[in-house]
């Protein structure tokens, strides 16, 4: 059981990583014509969440949503096709990388506006409570989003109404190129404020998939035990530039050393090495996993590339639901 979980975590993280890497390889060709925010380095939290909750539970995410979508079990082909702007995309090409959705697995959407999806996620939970559907709403957001007023408003309401919400803050130290200290007081923790607001709170190494899993698991339990909305702050780091697919340690907003330190703390290698060391997994198995993922990715990109573009007339359809 534990072995299975480890393996599943590793596999899911590798899947996220390898998809993002393939996007990074293909992106310079200029066929994925939309702003794209990768999660390389941040795979542990989305993988852990995905394995902790069921597909009836819901997730909301941000501009940096690929990993959350894949973690929650979203259809890979539909995501890649969406980034390519194809009619088979999960949003039919209307939304692009920043607007992913797969309702069939409870991945309810993402937003390109910082902080914007947080209240939407709380609303999902309000409906879950009133309609007694027993779903949990899991809201992903970054450190920057906690500077938006709507974050506090959302937290306050969730606490007042004791809603089944799990707030997942991936603190990767940056908002675009801005380090934390120009945006938030030095020494103040996001989780401390969350706790004072009335949330149940945990803090965890977001590059440790197993610890992240445990933290989420227990938060989910607390929600299910009616202990009210929960919050977890994950420390993590993105390896590539904020938007786009390149390394950018040279441009000067962060140091190569900092990057290397975090790279050493790679969530995937850490788990893989541990499992190899403890002989819970073999190199052969890993190769098999890689092969399987590579195949899936190939399929997904082929699907996306072969899919047709939406008819031009589609642009003028969909203003209103009927």
């Amino acid at each position: 059981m534990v072995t299975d979980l480890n393996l599943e975590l590793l596999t899911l993280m590798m899947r996220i990583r390898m998809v993002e890497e393939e996007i990074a390889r293909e992106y310079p060709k200029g066929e994925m014509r939309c702003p794209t925010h990768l999660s390389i380095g941040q795979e542990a939290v989305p993988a852990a969440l995905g394995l902790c909750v069921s597909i009836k539970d819901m997730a909301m995410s941000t501009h940096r949503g690929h990993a959350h979508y894949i973690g929650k079990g979203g259809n890979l082909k539909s995501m890649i096709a969406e980034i390519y702007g194809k009619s088979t995309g999960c949003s039919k090409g209307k939304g692009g990388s920043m607007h992913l959705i797969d309702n069939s697995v409870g991945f309810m959407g993402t937003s390109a506006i910082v902080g914007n999806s947080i209240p939407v996620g709380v609303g999902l939970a309000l409906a879950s409570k009133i309609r007694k559907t027993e779903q949990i709403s899991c809201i992903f957001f970054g450190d920057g989003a906690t500077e938006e007023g709507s974050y506090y408003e959302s937290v306050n309401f969730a606490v007042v109404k004791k809603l089944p919400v799990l707030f997942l803050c991936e603190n990767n130290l940056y908002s675009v190129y801005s380090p934390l200290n120009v945006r938030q007081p030095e020494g103040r923790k996001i989780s401390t404020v969350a706790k004072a607001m009335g949330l149940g709170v945990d803090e965890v190494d977001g590059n440790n998939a197993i610890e992240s899993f445990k933290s989420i698991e227990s938060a989910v339990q607390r929600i299910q035990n009616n202990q009210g909305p929960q919050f977890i702050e994950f420390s993590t780091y993105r390896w590539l530039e904020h938007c786009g697919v390149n390394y950018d340690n040279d441009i000067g907003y962060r140091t190569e050393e900092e990057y290397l330190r975090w790279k050493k703390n790679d969530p995937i290698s850490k788990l893989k090495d541990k499992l190899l060391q403890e002989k819970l997994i073999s190199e052969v198995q890993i190769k098999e996993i890689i092969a399987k993922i590579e195949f899936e990715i190939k399929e997904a990109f082929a699907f996306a590339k072969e899919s047709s573009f939406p008819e031009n007339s589609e642009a003028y359809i969909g203003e209103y639901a009927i």
Partner: protein
Amino acid sequence: MQSNNREITFATAINEAIHETMAANDNVICYGLGVTDPKAVFDTTKNLEQKFGSERVFDMPTSENAMTGIAVGASLNGLIPLMTHQRLDFFLLAMDQLINSASKWHYMFGSQQSVPITIRLILGRGWGQGPTHSQNLQAWFAHMPGLKVVMPTTPEDAKGLLTASILDPNPVVFLEHRWLHNVKGFVPEGFYSKPIGKAKKVKSGIDVTIVTMSYMTIEALHAVEYLEKMGISCDVIDLLTIRPIDWDSIFNSVKVTGRILALDTGFTTGSVAGEIIARVSMDCFDFLKCKPSRLAMPDMPEPTSPALTKGFYVRASDIVIAVIQMLGKDFSMVKNDLPEPIPHDIPGDWFKGPF
């Protein structure tokens, strides 16, 4: 629809619409500041909590932006939220959620999900409401793809259109002019709905088309009565919905009259009335017998002092004069015949302030 008609106020009609719709559909919820308080948002939310319970009807924190996003999220997970704000001005805090989320969700996620929320906004005027309690910014909403925007005048239309708004699968901004809340009219009992996007001819005539909305319709009807005595007959179209606008009704009328006066409760420049003048000028150019005309609020914040709002609002007399000018007749007596009511800053004796 029951045939049994009764005279009730606009506010009561709103209240009935919510009661009927909540009874008809368990997924409808209703919230907003003051929704459950003793004043019940000018009596429009009376007895809702008692009837439908505090899970479906509740007060909220003063958090306009998040509470709008929460409505969006709740609607994505099966509820049909109706939110109320006592003034449009407060809702400016929620433009991100209204515009970046609600109005685009259906389109940007490839028509997979819709956002059936309704936002009731009350439009202030007079009695010292001042610059930030009186803004009629319907032009903003009417500019936004993905929104529907409803502005009824009569209690009957208010009830039917609020029902339709709540049950519409799209985000609807429902605008209630504060000066209409105590206006009475015949309203059918029971559940019924009226189509969003259909204007209503409230008066038939052949000389001038008057396109109006919400409280301006009241002033227009006063004006038309006076004009009738002068032998001038107006075709009065109450828009009811300002997005999408019922262009056919407007164009058909202008093709007969050849003259148009568009009225608006908002600032003049960039008003919905301006959009109507523009479309009529483009689409009915060959039918126009004289230059089109528009009457709306001054391009100024609304001042607070009653001395400063004297003559500030568009009144029946202004409408009469605009119409007469189109016909090239004498209007020297109009301001005498139709003076601004005293006091000029309240809708009627029923209004005791302060809101």
